[in-house]
């Protein structure tokens, strides 16, 4: 479903991604772990072109992101993204946050979009917040709305960029629960995370990145209990 070939990304002289190769299959949950500055967020952001690609290729359902003829907006609509800092629209209600893209991108009517939005809010357990503004929500609630907003476009894959890193510890669980439900429904997910418990439990595969490259990848149990690469060993020994 997603194929990454020799992906390089530089900011000026600084090379952040030094040739990434990866494959993500449909319904797979891939967790990307690694120290900060390892390039894992940049990698994720290249998958929907929030960062443009310096060289290499990213194919999503066979369409090449680096091909200038590719309709990027259409592709982005199929790739949901959840951000560390939620990035909800503060001037719109919770429901409006969710219905904006279905109406403007897919051309749905307000009532069609509202139906989708209310169903998704029920799914993330926030039906009663539909008409509230984001500022009145807790961090965990904001992130659940952000997930619902991304799901409203009916994406084929969901990207999570450290979705629980900005949350108070007691609010992490509710967001992880929503993500678990999603994974169990068969959503294809790529999750950049520091939640090793989630990676271990829900990940079909774990990718360990450091210094702009994939250092090791494999089954979560193998990575966590028997890491091969010394960098992985050192990283895991620091955080576990």
């Amino acid at each position, binding site marked *: 479903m997603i194929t990454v070939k020799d992906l390089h990304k530089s900011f000026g002289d600084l090379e952040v991604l030094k040739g990434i190769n990866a494959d993500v299959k449909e319904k797979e949950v891939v967790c990307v772990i690694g120290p900060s500055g390892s390039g894992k967020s940049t990698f994720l952001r290249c998958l*929907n072109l*929030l960062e443009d690609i310096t060289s290499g290729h990213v194919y999503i359902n066979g369409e090449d992101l680096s091909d200038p003829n590719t309709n990027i*907006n*259409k*592709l*982005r*609509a*199929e*790739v*949901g*993204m959840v*951000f560390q*800092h939620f*990035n*909800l*629209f*503060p*001037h719109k209600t919770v429901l409006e946050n969710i219905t*904006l*893209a279905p109406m*403007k*991108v897919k051309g749905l009517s307000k009532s069609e979009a509202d139906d989708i939005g209310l169903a998704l809010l029920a799914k993330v357990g926030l039906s009663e917040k539909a008409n509230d503004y984001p500022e009145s929500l807790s961090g965990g609630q904001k992130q659940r709305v*952000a997930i619902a*907003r*991304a799901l409203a*476009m009916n994406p084929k894959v969901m990207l999570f960029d450290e979705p629980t890193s900005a949350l108070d510890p007691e609010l992490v669980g509710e967001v992880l629960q929503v993500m678990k439900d999603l994974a169990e429904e068969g959503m294809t997910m790529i999750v950049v995370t520091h939640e090793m418990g989630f990676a271990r439990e829900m990940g079909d595969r774990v990718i360990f990145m450091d210094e702009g490259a994939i250092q090791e990848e494999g089954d979560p149990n193998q990575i966590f209990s028997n890491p091969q690469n010394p960098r992985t060993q050192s990283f895991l020994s620091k955080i576990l």
Partner: protein
Amino acid sequence: MIDAILESPYINSLPVLFEGLKLTVLITFSGLFLGFILGAIVGIGRLSKKKLVRSISIVYIEVVRGTPILVQVLFIYYGLTEDLIGLSINSLTAAIIAITINAAAYIAEIVRGAVYSIEKGQGEAGRSLGLTENDTMRYIIWPQAFKRMIPPLGNQFVISLKDTSLFSVIAVGELLYMGKQYYNVTYEIFETLLMVSILYLLITIPTSVYLRRLERKLDV
């Protein structure tokens, strides 16, 4: 007593000065309205990824901000229209054009600053949902940025309002011009200019007070 007040040089000047005030307000509002449209275009152009568009916007802003508005209005009224295209426009039109062009340069910077101040994540969220750049600007960035533009726009209103007094040089019948006409006949210079000043303050002070309140309310 009543007669004395009614006959006072202060009160007597008012009917004439009010005529000028009307024009002052007309020039300011129409100039700011058009200036906002032009300023928004230039301000967004200033943020464009296209270098040419950006450069044109920068040149516009720098040229207009770097020259006195008095020069600009003389240029528009005499230089440009009469000398260059041989077409004369009336002084009111020239005044409105001058305020428009001048305010647009400052408003462009207000727009740029406000748009730039919106968190990067907002645009990223919009684009990640598949919205086009234009829709992201229109539905996500602009409404938030506009809120932040209101206080500096109010400030610009006060500045532009005072700038209109310079247009007495091209004989636009605005407030100061009417005042001058009046005291040239009556020789009541002090009284007339005092009333002129009060009339300006009658608009600028409430505007400032209202703006400060609005700023607190909008929390920007």
